[in-house]
């Protein structure tokens, strides 16, 4: 089972970051974080940016960590999945940097 776990680790991480982003977005809008200013950013956007940047970094770290383990097919799949996870975290979190928070 560990082999399967390693194969899908990258996308498990994506699922986690995606869930946290969407949840915090909903909670932040409900609690009025978008109105609380932290210097140039709202508290809401700062929190979401932090999650997104941290999540992308974690995804990249995972992808780089599994880079050398590519002898078996399952390990190669794990490697591709880790990169897919990292890219997916980056792409699906992009709206944090581009779109209005709670509009």
């Amino acid at each position: 089972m560990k082999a399967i776990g390693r194969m899908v680790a990258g996308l498990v991480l994506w699922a986690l970051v995606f869930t946290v982003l969407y949840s915090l977005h909903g909670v932040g809008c409900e609690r009025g974080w978008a109105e609380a200013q932290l210097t140039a950013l709202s508290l809401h956007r700062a929190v979401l940016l932090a999650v997104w940047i941290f999540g992308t970094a974690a995804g990249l770290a995972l992808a780089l960590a599994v880079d050398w383990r590519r002898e078996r097919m399952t390990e190669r799949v794990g490697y591709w999945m880790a990169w897919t996870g990292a890219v997916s975290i980056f792409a699906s979190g992009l709206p944090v940097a581009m779109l209005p928070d709670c509009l």
Partner: protein
Amino acid sequence: MSALRRHRALERIWRNEPGWRGRFTSVNHTTLGLRFMVAAFVFFAIAGLLAMLIRAQLATPHGGFIGPSAYAQVFTMHGSIMMFLFAIPLLEGLAMYLLPKLLGARDLAFPRVSALGWWCYLFGGSILIAAMIAGVAPDSGWFLYPPLASKPYTPGINADVWLLGITFVEISALAAAIEIVVTVLKLRAAGMRLDRMPIYAWYLFATAGMMVFAFPPLILGSILLEVERAFGWPFYTADRGGSPLLWQHLFWLFGHPEVYIIFLPAAGAISTILPVLARTRLVGYGPIVAAVLALAFLSFGLWVHHMYTTGIPHMALGFFSAASSLVAVPTAVQIFSWLATLWQGRPQLKLPMLYLIGFFVVFVPGGLTGVMVAVVPFDQQAHDSAFITAHLHYVLVGGFVFPMMAAAYWWLPHMSGRSHPTRMGVAAFWLVLIGFNLTFLGMHLTGLLGMPRRIETYAADIGWTALNLVSSVGGFVQAIGFALFALDIGLQVKFGRRSQRDPWRAETLEWAMPTPPPPYNFVSLPRVESREPLLDDPELGVRLVRGEGLLAEARHGWRETLAVNIVTGEPEHIAVVPGNSLLPITMAAVLGGFFLSMLAGWYPVAPLFLVVAAAIGWRWATETGSPAAIGKLPAGGGLELPTQHEVRGGPGWWGSVITVAASVTLLASLLFGHAFLWTVSTDWPPPALVQAVWLEPLLVLVGAGLALWAGRRADAGAQAERSHAPVTLAICGQFLVFSALIALVAWRIPSPAEHAYAATAMAMAAYALFHVGLALMMWLFVRRRIASGHIAGERSAPLRIVRLWSGLGALSAAGIALLLVLPAWLA
């Protein structure tokens, strides 16, 4: 022993009982798989007839063929049958039939669970069809949105039929999912490492994994809506703290992965058939496995793309739009791998290949319009229009129906033992392809011209007339094609000539057995060294019949198959699967009684059926295990292996792990619902409804702690046979939790009809009560089994399983009790 005597000995053990009784007691995967597929095609025919009614109605403006009320039932039933009674059961049936054969096993991991799934599907589907004949079919669309589906707007039983009937059918889907995951993990041929699995097994593994996590949200949503309709608990009623949008979230949390749940098994058939017909190997086995697993994950991040017009903030829509675009990448990886396979090989234009070409022609445009509707501004224009109807049909007919027709022609010689006699399949193909495109290509334009979905009539002067007429003509052309297909299949089964064993020269294990397959599949079980065992050894089938593989001896009347290490595929133990039984049909009938009594509004009677179901479950469990030590048994090839009764990580354990995962997903969906309502409700929780209580939560925590600690001690002491006292303590702990939860429900949670907060609180308490009650019953069962000698020494696997369930009950009860009192404590 001669091959014939070995065949007769195995046949006696594995065959269905003769006569009518055999129809009710069979648990054999080949029989059940075929039943599922035949029934699915019958439901397909019914839904197809409904589609003809829709097209007849829309053929001309001001259509008067059927009235609006009947029309609403017709389109609702068309979608519901196609999705829940055709697509999913067909893939379940194909998986049930094929999977053990592909993996070199004799049966699925839990044959009685397969049979239970079959009866639940048949009974649940029959409820829906009977309701349609009676004129009380669901009529709120196949996704049954409240408030339209709520009591005030659908006061009859129409929506209840959907909620109860579909939930009943979903039992079969979950059962199949658990069955498939465990079978892929454990019941493979010796030497079949993960990277030697046939590609189809990867597809089915991913699909089943998705089903485990996708179905619980829908089951939860259905239960909540039925409870709202029956008892007035306002989960979806806005003026009492609920939200109809919660249903949309729960439904599409299931509904979008559902598209891939339907697509992936069909794609698996393509990846299996295409290389053989292209006379080459599949290009990119590894990338395809990665793509399939990526789809399995990413498809869960798309559900909101069905809700772009519901007023969700732009940023949240952006998350889902990005994920919706991303999901095209792994789909494209598969498409390009298939094209590369065709390019690399020397394709033969045999009948299944024709249908695969149909897949490419139809599915790719459907995928591309999928990318279009993933983009928020476009979707806001096209939402709920005929464009979406066209898109979804291109995806589902292209991505499922065409590959499944190819699969039917591909595996029919295996199922029937007969070869294909006519050219009618070619005519059927062209009629379906041309008819389909006539129906749905123009429908994109009809949608862009503004025609909404589900309307029963339209005016003559708005420019939709010609397009609708063409769609209707195309629909009937398509129907003739499907009728020809059915006739062709029937002729092959009835009059086809005897087929050779491997007519396509395929290289996977299902072709290494006589056709039609005997009930035990393989006389002896193969050892494999690659992904193409028949390429390595074209005489493998003959050698297996001679008994040169593993587990060749029939003994003790046991149905034996091999269980292997998940990663290496090396043999670990002998799985002894149960034989013919009346328990599955009895259980399904009792569950049917529960659903029917709910449908009839006999609420006091309904729980009695659950009590009977619990008693049957108890009886079910008593038929497992061994009262005495067995030790290692010869398995052939010099191997000696223990039976599953004497190992800790057998199929039963993995089945429980997967079932617990499904249950935790249901709880997570419930917690999501609670949190969602909190974010959309202005007074959540209403201060008047929360009470700062200490005693009951404290008792729950103490009881849960005791149950967890005692469960661990019981499991640890199993080998030394010191489990009796800890088991008693675990029972006490769970009983304390159960009692405290009852007190919490009875005295502390306000009336659930008052506000959605109280309703979700009660739903969470009900979840905890159910699981704690289940754990309590399991511990009592274990206590009896220890006394009867079934659990002792090496035969302690049930303790580990019960500890898992007990842990779920205790932890969920503790978490939920804390969650319920937390707002008051914080206040």
